[in-house]
């Protein structure tokens, strides 16, 4: 079996042939100071930009999370250093743990379902003829390109308790109790709706990434397997799956991180119904604490916690990338 490694560029980025580096017109003397500095100079703008765009807000967040910072401070009152008090108050607050548990459960379940559905669509695409596949890809891209608020508006219409398509369809299928049923009132069905919406929005990315992985599997390998009498399921299980495993794991981790920070979908569904305090995930909880209540100190502390959880989750991803680099 040819051992063919997949490339691990972030899915979606162009991974075509890289042009061979052209020889510099005026060769420099080896080891000159200028040529040693040059790479750093070239990297400098990126580093500065990253520092400005990421370092500054993160720094502010860390500083603010150690302060008592409310509306009065926002309007000029001197903030008071409270050390780790914000964190201590949070850690002993059952509300936060409720939110953390909900968020982690939501993100794990949603990411798993997304990758499962996305994988299935990718396998389907691999099996389709060219034009059907193209149609499917265009449909997927359209779903992906849909502005989030527009998509949410339609979803909210679908689950509307009084005139929603979902209840109408259920009633017509003979489920009479569905008339006027409110899907957003109970936290559990709220999260099922939210999860379906998030899955719908993320499947295109996952499906296209995995499909890209599948196309990397050499046709000769598949032919050899078919000659050996491997069934479709066996080919999927023993040839495709191991070969696209790296793509699967990266996609899975990205989904976990994105689903952990989900905000817009939850916020818009909360505005449409439900009890906000029973359906908060980390994103909406930070928003409610900071922008809503004006308690920026505690909100920053929660944001730092989210950062830590995200780092913990992506640690594996970064490490496996590093391992492949070296």
């Amino acid at each position, binding site marked *: 079996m040819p051992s063919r490694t997949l490339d691990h560029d972030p899915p979606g980025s162009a991974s075509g042939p890289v042009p061979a580096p052209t020889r510099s017109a005026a060769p420099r003397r080896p080891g000159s100071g200028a040529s040693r500095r040059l790479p750093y100079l070239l990297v400098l703008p990126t580093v500065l930009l990253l520092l400005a765009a*990421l370092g500054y807000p993160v720094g502010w967040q860390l500083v603010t999370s150690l302060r008592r910072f409310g509306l009065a401070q926002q309007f000029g009152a001197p903030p008071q250093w409270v050390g780790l008090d914000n964190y201590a108050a949070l850690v002993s607050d059952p509300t936060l743990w409720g939110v953390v548990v909900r968020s982690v459960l939501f993100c794990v379940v949603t990411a798993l379902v997304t990758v499962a559905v996305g994988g299935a669509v990718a396998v389907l695409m691999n099996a389709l003829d060219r034009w059907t596949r193209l149609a499917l890809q265009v449909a997927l891209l359209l779903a992906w390109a849909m502005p989030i608020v527009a998509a949410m508006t339609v979803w909210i219409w679908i689950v509307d308790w009084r005139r929603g398509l979902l209840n109408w369809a259920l009633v017509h299928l003979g489920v009479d109790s569905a008339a006027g049923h*409110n899907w957003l009132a109970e936290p559990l069905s709220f999260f099922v709706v939210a999860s379906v919406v998030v899955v719908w929005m993320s499947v295109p990315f996952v499906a296209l990434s995995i499909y890209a992985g599948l196309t990397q599997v050499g046709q000769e390998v598949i032919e050899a397997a078919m000659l050996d009498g491997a069934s479709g399921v066996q080919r999927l299980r023993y040839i495709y799956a191991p070969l696209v495993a790296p793509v699967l794991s990266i996609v899975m981790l990205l989904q976990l991180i994105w689903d952990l920070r989900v905000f817009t979908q939850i916020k818009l569904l909360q505005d449409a119904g439900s009890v906000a305090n029973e359906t908060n995930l980390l994103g909406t909880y930070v928003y409610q604490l900071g922008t809503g209540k004006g308690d920026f100190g505690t909100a920053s502390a929660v944001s730092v916690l989210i950062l830590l959880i995200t780092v913990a989750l992506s640690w594996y991803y970064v490490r496996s990338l590093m391992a492949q680099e070296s």
Partner: protein
Amino acid sequence: MNRRLPLVVLTSAALALSACSSGGGSDEPAATSTADNAGETVTLWLAGGDTPDELRTYLQDTFASETGATLKIEEQAWGDLVTKLTTALPDAANTPDVVELGNTQSPTFTNVGAFMDISDMYDELGGDKLLQSFVEAGSVDDTKYALPYYFGSRYMFYRKDIWKKAGVEVPTTLEEFNSAVATIAEDNPEDIKNFSGFFIGGQDWRNGISWIFANGGDLATKEDGQWVSTLSDPASLEGLTQLQTIQREASKAPADAKDQSPWLYINDSDTILDEEGKQTSKTSLAAATIMAPGWAHWSIGDLVKKDGKQVREWNDDTFGVFALPGTDGEPAPVFAGGSNIAISAKTQNPELSEELLRIVFSPEYQKMLGGAGLGPANSDYVDSLGDDEFAQALIDSASNSKLTPAAPGWAAVESSQVLEEFFGKIRDTDDLAGLAQQYDEKITPMLNG
């Protein structure tokens, strides 16, 4: 998937936080003559579309002729007004000079020094003639920061035809109202599935608190300088019990419905037609009564075509209005809606901003507010509302209206949505007193900021 949003939120939050470090207002030279002001611009933030265009133009024209400066009006959406004020007001370089904000949002900002002290202008702008509950909401002790801009209040819209078929009269006391709407729901004269005598969403606390107020209760009171939540006080509890009965017997609204567009349920001309244009199901009418702010009447009525557009036209035979009656037959104290207006503490144009307030509180502009159906801040000009039934219901219902507590933490209570949560649980609880007590314990610590 929106994967950039969290970063954007974090970034903007951090930028907002940093905004306070760039403070430090500078003193502009006093503006005296119109020629000196030619290059100056004053920015006014209006909330939502409540102020009609005609009034905006009047403000701009008058401001230009009185001062020579330009008035820039920027409209902010109600939904993110608090957020925008929180980030813009502390920033001297970007603050709007004059802002409109919800009356109940005022205490949050007055207590942290966001607005300029305008006590010295108070008498000149109307003094005791100004709506006092709003003045209180905009004051800290005796210092005036925000003054009333306009008021509105909530009253009842009802279906005359259905009330009549159910054989009930327009109520004169709260008790009569409570039983009338229960009778209509039970009677259901049009035989419509899930029909509400009175449609009130479970989480709709802004209308629901009318029953607390009407029974002499309150959301919170100040005891020994500290605010205390009073949902479980006997009078509040009496009101909540009546509301529970309404939610159980008269209203078929979901427990998590809020107060958005209730007129959808009282209109009936959105009939469902089949291919031949015949009516298949009778109507999507779902309620005989709703409670809404006065301007809702533009959305209630028969569906007619006007200039090619479908619009609602009020029909006196089908629809009527009345102010919710109290226990004593007088109008019940309902939640007073409306806005306050204030000058940013960080404004670069204090004199011009004061000039703008003089125009807003001038008799001409006050009358224009009334003419547009907005309750004028100055009681001398309330007649300008006219004498139609809407004006009458507005004046009646506002005559006894009440504000939410002027506690420094009130905006935090609202944005934590804890009241939505509490009201949403009223219908299904077996222990209302216990539930009220539980939420008192949650709300009290938030009230004092």
